[in-house]
């Protein structure tokens, strides 16, 4: 499995959000670090095919990310998302299961499984608009995992989660990373420090640093702060 980002740029009028970025992602967890406005979300949207790059190309196993077949193996959690007001948590998952092309029976089983995994079984029949921020975030994570994605893109997934939920989430992502490509963006270094095999650091739309990070390399946070200060 290989997600190739080849000299990708995204320009809006007089602003360059992503500037000639190249990277190759393989199976495992990749942490995408950067301050607010670094271009992380724009890059992730391009990887998901939501935005078209101004130049460059993104492919998955040779298939451009604009193709429908790629979306069938993609799971995405955006930074912010809404919900139709009449939907319960279960309705939300079943709706997206249908959009992901899952047969009804399979969708029901998988939704139950995921509601259990993210701890929302007790509130699954309640309207999503009554959920707290953390509950909604967990529902979003469940949605991203419906189709057992080969490529999982998570934009600030731990926002709104309490410390215990964040630990559970890290364990879940670590497991998924054993068989899928996971790209996780955050500006909180501790979210990725212990689970990411590969780190990308962005600043001003450019890739500041990329490489493997092991515990023996020391504190990722100190390294991150040092790189950004330079």
């Amino acid at each position: 499995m290989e997600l190739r980002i080849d000299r990708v740029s995204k320009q809006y009028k007089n602003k360059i959000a992503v500037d000639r970025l190249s990277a190759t992602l393989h199976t495992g967890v990749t942490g995408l670090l950067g301050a607010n406005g670094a271009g992380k979300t724009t890059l992730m949207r391009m990887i998901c095919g939501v935005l078209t790059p101004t130049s460059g190309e993104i492919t998955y196993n040779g298939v451009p990310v604009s193709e429908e077949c790629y979306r069938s193996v993609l799971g995405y959690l955006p930074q912010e998302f809404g919900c139709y007001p009449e939907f319960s948590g279960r309705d939300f998952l079943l709706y997206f299961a249908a959009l992901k092309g899952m047969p009804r029976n399979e969708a029901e089983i998988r939704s139950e499984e995921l509601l259990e995994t993210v701890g929302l079984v007790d509130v699954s029949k309640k309207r999503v608009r009554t959920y707290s921020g953390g509950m909604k975030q967990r529902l979003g994570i469940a949605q991203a995992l419906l189709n057992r994605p080969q490529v999982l893109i998570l934009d600030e997934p731990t926002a709104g989660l309490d410390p215990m939920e964040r630990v559970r989430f890290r364990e879940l992502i670590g497991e998924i990373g054993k068989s899928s490509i996971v790209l996780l963006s955050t500006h909180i270094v501790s979210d990725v420090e212990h689970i990411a095999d590969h780190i990308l650091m962005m600043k001003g739309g450019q890739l500041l640093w990329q490489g493997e990070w092991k515990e023996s390399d020391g504190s990722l946070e100190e390294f991150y702060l040092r790189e950004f200060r330079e």
Partner: protein
Amino acid sequence: MTTEAKNRELLLLFFEPDEKPDPAKKEAFLKNVMTGQITRATKKTLDQMLLTQIKYIRKTAWLAALMILLAAVLITKGSPDSVLQISALTPLLAFVTEIETRRSYAYGMAELEMTTAFSLRSIRYARFMILGLFDLAVLSGISLLIRKYIAISAMLTLSCLLLPFLLTMTGALLLERTAFGRSHPYGSGVLALLIAAGTEILLLPAGPLAMPLNKTLIMQDYAWVLEIATVLMLVTVIALFCTNVKQEAEMTTLWN
């Protein structure tokens, strides 16, 4: 050859290594495998997707059309002279239909729906087609009802009903392209009310297009103008919708 020898030969065939495939064709092979698998899955569930969208279209969208049908039945029974004023209700139907096709943006679901196998574009087309056909069926039914009371052609009756509907849809789709329209999805409701009011004024019993029940409609002489205008507006609405969906796929203005 004995049976044992034949079995030994077969086993050897299974375990003998074949020629290695050309590594240069690896990417093309992977692409074919993935697209082949997904194409089969997609075809199998495409009709399921359409049925799903019918299920997820809000009841208000269906009810709006049925309410207009009910109004038509009541008006034709109670006040046959005013039967063509039903046309004034069709802009409201157009508003409800147009809003339903772009709920994804109104409720912040668009970004998620863009990344599914059946993406936002398919969803919008499906909703547009389903509701468009349903509305057309209801309006055709109403036109048949009206023809019981006014001796005018079916095409002209349908044109009278469709013109305000299509005018509202055109305005709403043009509004969708503006920053104001995108941030105020219910703004086309005001447009619908204005067109409804204008239609009502035109068709009042004492109005400029008043038509006594048993006499030929004053505009029957210009029926071909109305009918051509209806067809042109229908084509315009479809073209505008398709280009809007195509532009939204990029969503650059949304994130500028």
